[in-house]
């Protein structure tokens, strides 16, 4: 039991750090990496299995959060590119619609 929770903890830790590295913004990226590392370090000596499980649940939630946010922050750059592409394609059909 202790061994499996240890492997769980380690794999979560690795996953969270890997996801955190994908934040496009410097400040968020460094914060996420640092916070994850410090949080796991802080709870290194917790023995009670119930507490460990509760912390793991919280960690999994945070991993999902990081995944969501990392994908979200990549959108504006894609969106801006899409809008610019759309603007560059403006031509005949649309100016007709304007006068109509």
């Amino acid at each position, binding site marked *: 039991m202790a061994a499996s929770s240890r492997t769980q903890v380690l794999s979560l830790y690795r996953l969270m750090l890997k996801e955190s590295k994908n*934040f496009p913004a*410097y*400040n*968020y990226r*460094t*914060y*996420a990496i*640092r*916070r994850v590392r*410090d949080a796991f370090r802080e709870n290194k000596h917790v023995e009670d299995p119930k507490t460990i499980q509760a912390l793991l649940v919280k960690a999994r939630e945070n991993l999902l*959060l*990081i995944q*969501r*946010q990392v994908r*979200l*922050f990549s959108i504006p750059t894609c969106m801006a590119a899409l*809008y610019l592409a*759309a*603007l560059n394609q*403006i031509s005949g*059909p*649309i100016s007709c*619609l*304007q006068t109509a």
Partner: protein
Amino acid sequence: MACSAGRVFRCGLSQSSKRLQKVIRSRELDENELRPLYMDFQATTPMDPRVLDAMLPYQVNYYGNPHSRTHAYGWESESAVELARKQVADLIGADPREIIFTSGATESNNISIKGVGRFYKTKKKHVITTQTEHKCVLDSCRALEAEGFHITYLPVKSNGLVDLQQLEESFRPDTSLVSIMTVNNEIGVIQPIKEIGHLCQSRKIFFHTDAAQAAGKIPLDVNDMKIDLMSISGHKIYGPKGVGAVYVRRRPRVRLEPLQSGGGQERGLRSGTVPTPLAVGLGAACEIARQEMKYDEHRVSKLSKRLIDKIMAGLPDVIMNGDPEKRYKGCINLSFAYVEGESLLMALKDVALSSGSACTSASLEPSYVLRAIGTDEDLAHSSIRFGIGRFTTEEEVDYTAEKCILQVKRLREMSPLWEMVQEGIDLKSIKWTQH
């Protein structure tokens, strides 16, 4: 997109976007230019990703009006707002029923000062505040003055703190309110709130504090500190802009004359639909701040010490404004003698800093806060405020310190005043001739 709906959408977008693009291009950075380091956490803070994550569902999906009582959209929004209310209340040790959502700390300050002042104006027409308050507090007091109130603007000691003796002496039988901010936004000093609160309670005077810079950063308890009214700002604690809260004590009840009339939302004190996503964001920000307070405080203190030690070691004649001990470590206001503040800010253009507060940055006058603490005119002009927050890194602090030292040295080399000082001339003894 081939469909006509797509084309109409794009058509509507084109005109305004072209104009917007032009504006953006003229003020934005060039293609490959990097954005400056952000070291101005007192002006505003970036949103914590966890706050954004909490807000998004309410921006997109759960868009009901929290005051709609008849359907699920309203119910789910209302429960989110009530949860947010509890989160804000837990941060300051209050009851959720005592929290009212507003559009920001400025509105909260207006509600507190004008509301309390006007409610009790038949019998009590005196309000006490300090000279170092935020502009919105001072302006609200000025508005009350125009309505016939007497306002005492207490001076502060040279370390920025209020003199409790002076405060006590300024109490009058017709004083209704004392308003003193917890943490100053320009020099970062923490006022003795607990002592002030107890003093006011003993005289049955209401105590309002503007805790925009303090909430979520230092531990606050409204019952322990005997605070009757408190203003909280969302965008100072890594929450969204455009939302804030005001804490209004229920026991003993603080009566207010509402500023904004309407449908009676928020206990009748602040009518208007509560913006669910913003309120949820504020709640999330408060919850995160409560959980992270110790960690952030430890880290900010460490970085602050690092910045100050580096700059003080690398440069002579640097003065820290405000009390060195009773301060919030994340707000550092330094005056660099013989250097002009604006030129130093421009020289440090790849670090986002400010001299004084954002509200006063447009005017050329030195900050009134620095004038109130008795800073010399020339030192007041050469002050820079460094802000350190949750997301600041060691590298940013090191870079800022090194750049600062470099630029100050360079500017001092060019300064004739610095030359004279090096030669041992006392600047105060010089008689400047008039041309």
